[in-house]
Structures are given as structure tokens and as C-alpha cells.
């Protein structure tokens, strides 16, 4: 199996030169995206066969590549298969979407060669089974995605986004390099099998956890390492944004699960507290940032930060239960986290595709310039609405299931013996609830301002429905959102081998439960039936519509909307994105963002309009990153003098460094 998967990755790499040759030809796009689609579907099939198949043993391959004494190890076990499925589902959808969407690309030569390389990088990270291949694939993924972020490098701020992304990616890889160095130990066992066989000592394992959190968290977007994410994800072309947000963050999550659950040995009790606290803060901060945004794609990128927080809450709970010897509860929490990984990849890809379709149709990302698109792009509006409902965790869609399961795990926390966790977990639960509610508010804003009301600009008024292939990609994902929402038992059962391998237990089998309900712990405690909710909603909605149309008038009447008695028909009098967010900004923003509102009134008698200016400050940037940046800048200015030494001074520098090192060697005990 792993050999087949590697062949798939090799095919993806092999089309990179093809894409380079055909970069200006009009056939380049269908060929590159078509082959990517086929390969992704094949890899998805391989992953599903491995995950659902009965074969317990993982398939292993060792290629004579890389370091001569190490080789390149690849392994396809249940965990890798699950993430391979998630990655390639997203890749297949993005390729299908790009078949239509890519037609509007101005610079296809800047996108086509890097796209299959990016897909191959992500697939290889998931398959890698030694530190060297993992890091090479990881860097491959980072660099090719960086090239894609820089595809439109002349757009203002994209170059800065790319630069910050590159710096953060290098930093994250450094942390991962150190992580694997610690895990390998002095013996230098760089394969994952060696690391698994010799778990690190308690002190080392703590360092491994922190470094893994930094390394994978900086890629996944954990606060406060998220700064690059909302800059870089929107800067890329939309199908790549969907991949970066929906899929690449999941590859980072895979890295975390692989290191912390699989390689680092038994967790200590305090690990979960770190992960839980970070997850809770990330969830709330992500959604608060998102609420302050008017840029549709950036809003979605901040929601990725929020959902990564939710996923890490699930993992934190799993660590807590695992450390205290409660494998069943750990299995529940880990299943919740992994299910959210899948769900988020589906609906976040869907939403980014929708944002891409809107961007194509109107040329606008700023919501304040959109509006009324539901009449012009009805199908896009419908699938976007499905995505919004799913990410807001509304039943019967898939987002609800995973967040509900996370809450079920939180409700098991009173059984934990540790007092710290007894206090922390309910607090994190409150943060999770808060973030879910704010996310719903945020997507009411995103959908309402973009698709409802009247168009605010001529560009929005002249929008056209997007092409059939893009719509097909979005429809498939929307259907998956619904299927995963009404048949969650199927997905929970297929996650069982993954969870079994990582925490040594699994959730109860959902297959035989009556009426396709899911029962996470016991029937007496809680159960959820998505199908029932769906059927109820369909029937009651249909009945209501029937009643209204049959019993009341079904005549269509168009009338001017009530505008507080003000007769100005200008669309600017509608609710705007910032006015919708104002109450939440006043409650949370004054503290978190130092939000200041300033009203400038014209003097009496002057007919100039009054102005309301809102100032927001990103405290995390100001406190954490700005000092580092200025410190590095100052040091660089000082060291600049070193560039202008004479030849002899350079030689003296080398000489004194050599003598110094020899002295150290001589004096070292």
C-alpha cells in the first residue's frame, strides 16, 4: 500500500517539470490539475482502503534515498492513513475546483509548477517514518506553499506576508529539528520505530512537548504563533488558500499527534494543561480576530486559527485522560479532535472555494464592497451557507458532531483526579462554548453582508454565477458536510483503529446503534441522532412553507425595505460588517485589541459628514513580535560593520576564531 502511495507522490513530483514546460500553454491548466485530481483520488482510495481494510499491520517501505546510513523510511499505519485521506480529499476537491477556477488566473506560470509539488510535499509528510524524510518533506511543503503565496507578489502586502511566512516556517522547522534530535537521543535512532522503542526520559519528554508545540503549532496557527497565517493564507490563489487552511494546517496537526501521542511515550499529567490552555486561548482569540475582519478570505483564515484551537482542546483532553489512565474517555476526546480535523478540512475548503468564486465574480475580497450576491450567484450562496452553518456547529451538519463530542469529553472531566485539571477543563469548556457562539455570530456577518441585502458596489451588482466545475467541487464538499453530519457513526467507527493505536482504547461501536444515533459513552448519558434532526428540519420546514404558501397569499411582492423612515435608497445605509461587529467589538475588543472608536463631528453649520474611526491594535504583535523584530534589526545594523573589514582583518577573524576554539578544546575538562 505504501508503495502505491509513494508512486502517487512520485507522479505528482513528475508533473512539476511538465507544468514548467507547459506554463504558458493553455493546456497546462487542465493537464496539471487533471492529473493532480486523478492522483489525489487514487491516494484517497489507498488511504480509505488502509483505514477501513482489515489489515492490522502497517505497510512499510525503505527507499535508498536521503542519508546513506539511514535511507528514507515510509510507513502507512492507521494514523497516517486517516491524515492521508484528509489531505487527499482536500487536494482532490481543490484540483477539481481549480480546473474551473484556474481559468481566471493571471499568472498561471507562477502557480502551476508549485501546485503538484505542494500536494506531493503534504502527502510525503504524512507517509514519512523517519526524522530526515519527515523534515525534508515538511520543508518541501513549506517552500512550495511559500512560492504559491508569492504567486501574486506584486499585490501590496503579499511580499510582506510571504516574508513573515518564511521566517515563521524556518523557525518552526528549527523547533521540529530539535524535537527529533531529542527523540533520537545520543544513539542517533532517527527512524520513528527507533524513537518509539526508546521513549525519552521525563525531562527530555517535556522539552519534546514544548518544541513540538512550537514546531507544529507555528504551522497549524496556535496563538501566539499564528501571525503569519492570516497574512499568508489569503494571499495565495483561492484554491491554494483552501489547501493551506484546510489541509496544510492538518498536516501540522498530524505532526503534533505523531510526536506527542506516538513517539514521546507516556504523557505527564501537566502536558494536557499546556495543550488545553493553548487550545482554549487559540479558539477564542481566533474567532475574536475573525470578527474584526472585513476581508472575507482573512476572516476565513482567522477561523482556521479558531478551529485549530478546538482541535487542540480535543487533543489536550485526550492527553489528560490518557495520563490519568482513563483510556475510554481519552478515546472519546481524541476521536472528537480527529473528527474535527476531518470536518474542518471539508468545510474550510468549501468556504475558501466560495470566497474564491466571489472574488472571481466581483474582484472584491472586502465584504463592505459586496452584498446581494444571493440573487446573482444562488448556487454559490447555497453551498456557502451550508459551509457557514457547518463551521458554526449547527446541527445536522458535521461541525456540530465534533464539537458536541468535545463537549461530551469535557463533561467527563469531573472524574479526573487532578485538581488543576478539574478547574482548568471547565474553564476551557467555557472558552469553547464562547468561541462556538462567536463563530456563529461571525458567519452570520460573513454570509449576511456578502450575500444578503443589496449590492454595495457596481462590481457586486454585476456578478455572475461561477463555472460548473468550481460549483461541482463545492457541491461535493457541501454534500460531505451533510453526510458526515447525519451519519457520524460511520466516521467514528472508521477512526477506531487510529484511536486504538494511540490511546489503547476506542469509542463504543456505533454501527449497531438503533436509528443511526451516536452514543459516545452510554445511552443513559447522552446520544445524538443527526438523521432525526435532519428529517425533522426538512419536514417542519416543508410544512411551514406549505402552510405559508397554501394558507396565506403566495403572490410575490417587491417593496422598498423599511429604513427607519429615512428615504435614502443608497445601499450604504445597510448594516455593514463593522456595524454588525460593533457590539462584540465593544465588549471584547476594548480589552483584547485596545479598540478605540473616535467620532469626528463637523462643526455646527457645516454639512460635511461625521466620521466614525475605529482603531484596533494587535497586542500579540506589539508585545511579542515587534520587540524581536526591532532587536534583530538593531543587531544587524551593528554587525553590518563586519562586511567592510580589510582582507587581513577577515583573516584575523578566522584565525582568532580557530585559536579560540582550540583553547576551548584545550581547557575543556
Amino acid at each position, binding site marked *: 500500500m505504501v508503495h502505491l502511495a509513494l508512486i502517487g507522490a512520485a507522479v505528482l513530483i513528475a508533473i512539476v517539470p511538465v507544468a514548467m514546460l507547459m506554463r504558458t500553454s493553455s493546456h497546462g491548466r487542465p493537464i496539471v490539475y487533471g492529473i493532480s485530481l486523478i492522483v489525489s483520488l487514487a491516494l484517497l482510495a489507498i488511504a480509505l482502503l488502509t483505514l477501513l481494510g482489515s489489515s492490522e499491520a502497517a505497510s512499510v517501505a525503505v527507499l535508498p534515498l536521503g542519508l546513506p546510513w539511514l535511507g528514507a523510511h515510509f510507513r502507512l499505519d492507521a494514523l497516517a492513513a486517516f491524515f492521508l485521506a484528509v489531505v487527499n480529499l482536500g487536494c482532490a476537491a481543490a484540483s477539481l475546483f481549480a480546473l474551473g477556477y484556474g481559468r481566471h488566473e493571471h499568472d498561471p506560470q507562477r502557480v502551476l509548477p508549485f501546485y503538484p509539488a505542494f500536494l506531493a510535499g503534504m502527502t510525503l509528510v504524512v507517509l514519512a517514518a523517519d526524522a530526515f524524510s519527515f523534515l525534508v518533506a515538511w520543508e518541501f511543503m513549506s517552500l512550495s506553499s511559500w512560492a504559491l503565496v508569492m504567486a501574486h507578489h506584486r499585490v501590496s502586502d503579499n511580499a510582506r506576508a510571504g516574508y513573515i511566512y518564511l521566517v515563521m516556517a524556518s523557525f518552526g522547522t528549527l523547533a521540529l529539528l530539535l524535537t527529533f534530535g531529542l527523540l533520537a537521543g545520543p544513539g542517533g535512532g532517527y527512524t520513528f520505530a527507533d524513537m518509539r522503542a526508546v521513549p525519552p526520559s521525563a525531562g527530555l519528554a517535556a522539552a519534546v512537548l514544548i518544541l513540538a508545540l512550537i514546531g507544529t503549532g507555528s504551522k497549524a496557527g496556535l496563538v501566539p504563533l499564528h501571525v503569519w497565517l492570516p497574512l499568508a493564507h489569503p494571499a495565495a490563489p483561492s484554491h491554494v488558500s483552501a489547501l493551506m487552511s484546510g489541509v496544510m494546517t492538518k498536516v501540522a496537526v498530524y505532526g503534533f499527534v505523531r510526536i506527542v501521542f506516538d513517539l514521546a511515550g507516556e504523557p505527564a499529567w501537566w502536558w494536557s494543561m499546556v495543550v488545553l490552555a493553548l487550545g482554549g486561548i487559540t479558539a477564542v482569540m481566533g474567532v475574536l480576530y475573525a470578527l474584526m475582519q472585513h476581508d472575507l478570505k482573512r476572516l476565513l483564515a482567522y477561523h482556521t486559527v479558531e478551529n485549530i484551537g478546538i482541535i487542540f482542546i480535543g487533543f489536550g483532553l485526550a492527553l489528560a485522560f490518557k495520563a490519568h489512565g482513563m483510556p475510554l474517555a481519552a478515546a472519546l476526546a481524541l476521536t472528537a479532535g480527529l473528527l474535527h480535523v476531518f470536518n474542518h478540512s471539508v468545510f474550510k475548503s468549501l468556504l475558501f472555494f466560495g470566497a474564491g468564486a466571489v472574488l472571481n465574480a466581483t474582484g472584491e475580497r472586502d465584504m463592505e464592497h459586496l452584498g446581494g450576491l444571493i440573487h446573482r450567484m444562488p448556487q454559490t450562496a447555497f453551498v456557502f451557507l451550508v459551509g457557514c452553518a457547518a463551521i458554526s456547529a449547527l446541527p445536522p451538519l458535521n461541525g456540530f458532531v465534533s464539537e458536541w463530542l468535545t463537549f461530551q469529553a469535557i463533561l467527563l472531566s469531573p472524574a479526573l483526579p487532578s485538581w488543576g485539571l478539574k478547574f482548568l477543563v471547565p474553564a476551557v469548556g467555557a472558552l469553547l462554548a464562547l468561541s462556538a457562539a462567536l463563530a456563529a455570530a461571525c458567519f452570520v456577518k460573513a454570509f449576511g453582508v456578502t450575500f444578503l441585502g443589496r449590492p454595495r458596489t457596481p462590481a457586486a451588482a454585476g456578478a455572475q454565477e461561477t463555472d460548473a466545475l468550481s460549483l461541482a467541487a463545492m457541491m461535493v464538499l457541501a454534500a460531505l458536510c451533510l453526510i458526515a453530519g447525519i451519519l457520524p457513526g460511520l466516521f467514528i467507527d472508521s477512526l477506531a483503529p487510529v484511536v486504538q493505536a494511540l490511546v489503547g482504547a476506542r469509542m463504543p461501536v456505533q454501527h449497531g446503534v438503533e436509528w443511526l444515533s451516536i452514543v459516545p459513552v452510554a445511552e443513559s448519558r447522552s446520544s445524538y441522532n443527526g438523521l432525526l434532526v435532519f428529517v425533522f428540519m426538512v419536514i417542519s420546514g416543508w410544512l411551514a412553507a406549505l402552510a405559508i404558501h397554501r394558507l396565506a397569499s403566495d403572490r410575490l411582492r417587491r417593496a422598498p425595505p423599511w429604513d427607519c423612515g429615512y428615504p435614502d435608497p443608497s445601499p450604504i445605509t445597510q448594516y455593514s460588517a463593522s456595524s454588525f461587529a460593533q457590539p462584540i467589538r465593544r465588549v471584547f475588543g476594548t480589552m483584547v485589541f485596545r479598540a478605540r472608536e473616535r467620532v469626528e463631528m463637523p462643526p455646527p453649520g457645516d454639512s460635511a459628514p461625521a466620521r466614525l474611526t475605529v482603531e484596533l491594535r494587535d497586542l500579540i504583535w506589539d508585545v511579542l513580535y515587534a520587540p524581536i523584530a526591532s532587536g534583530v534589526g538593531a543587531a544587524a545594523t551593528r554587525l553590518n560593520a563586519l562586511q567592510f573589514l*580589510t582582507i587581513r582583518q577577515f583573516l584575523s577573524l578566522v584565525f582568532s576564531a580557530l585559536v579560540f576554539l582550540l583553547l576551548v578544546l*584545550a581547557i575543556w575538562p
Partner: protein
Amino acid sequence: MGELSYDVAHLLAGSLVLVSFMQLYQDRLYALLNIFALHALVLTLSVAWQAYVQEAPHLYVTAGIALVFKAIVIPVALHRIIVKLGIHREIETVVGVGPTMLLGMGLVALSMVVMLRVTTDADPLARQDLAFALSVVLLGLLVMVTRRNAVSQVVGFMSLENGLVLAATGAKGMPLVVEISVAFSILIAFIVIGIFLFRIRERFDSVDIQTLDRFRGERR
């Protein structure tokens, strides 16, 4: 045999260090070149002795290369360059001769301490050899650092390389390919530096590297 071979190897390697010291106090270019030729000659003897002791005939090739190129070709070529360019034949030093000699002694002591500590379980002959070789390398670097004249920097660089060859031949079983490639790279370096000398001279009428620095508009 063992005692004698050890002593002779020790003597030759020690003389190489001694000749390196002689390079440090030369203040005329021709004299410096002559000393360098002597340096290469001692190296040739040392390598040839190693070839005899280790019964490694390929080391004779190395010795031959050292003799032909380093003891004859390069000094003669440098002589010609000096004549052709009409280079000022006095060497300007940065640090006085006395302090330089003291520094050199410190470096030799340092390399002894380091090498004897690091290679405790190695063959005693190799140990001594490595310690001397490191001294030669460091002294070559010292020549490069304390002289302002470009030709003397070339000489410093070449004698540094001699130290590397000494180290390489002292260790048993060093393949010939490595030695030849090292020698070849040194030859290339020599050609490049020679061309540079011509170019510098063409432009500035001097090979004093201070001129280069002034050209780059920098303080000393």
C-alpha cells in the same frame, strides 16, 4: 628500526616547525621565498621518510609533487612575478617581529596541548605528527595575518597547506586520491592568487593590500 624511524620522523616534523618560525622573522621577500623553498624541501624529506617507514610507495608520489611544485616551481614562479612586477622587496609587518615570535610559540604550545589531549589513544608517532602539523598550520595562518604584502600572504597560505600534507601523510592509510586532490586544489589556488596579483598590480601599481582597502574606501 622502530626507535630510529620514530626519531627521524620526529626530527623532520620538528624541523618543519622550526622553518615555519624562520618564515616569521623574514623582512625581505626573496629571503621569504627561499625559506619557503626550504620548508617544502623539509616537507618532501618528511613525506619520503613516511613513505619508507610505512612502506607506502604512493607517498613517494606525494613527496615528488611537493618537491617539484612547492620547492621548485612555485618559488621560481613567485620570484619571476616579483621581478616582473617590480614589487617593493621589503615586507611591512603589522605586529613587530618579537611579539610575532612570542605569539608563534604560544600557538605551538597550544597545538601540543590540544593534540596530546585529544589523541590519547592514538599511535604515538601519529600523535606527534599531528601536533607538529597543527603548529605548522597555525604558524602559516599567523604569517598571513601579520603581513601586509600579498606575496607573503601567498607564502603563508602555501606553508599552511604544507602542514595539512604533513598531517595527511602522518596518518596511515590516507588514500593517494585525497593527497593529489589537495595538491591540485593548492595549485589552482596558486594560479588564482597569481592572476589576482597581476590584476591588483595592473590597477594599483602595487601589491600592498592596503591599496585595495583604500580603493574600497575603508578605514584601516
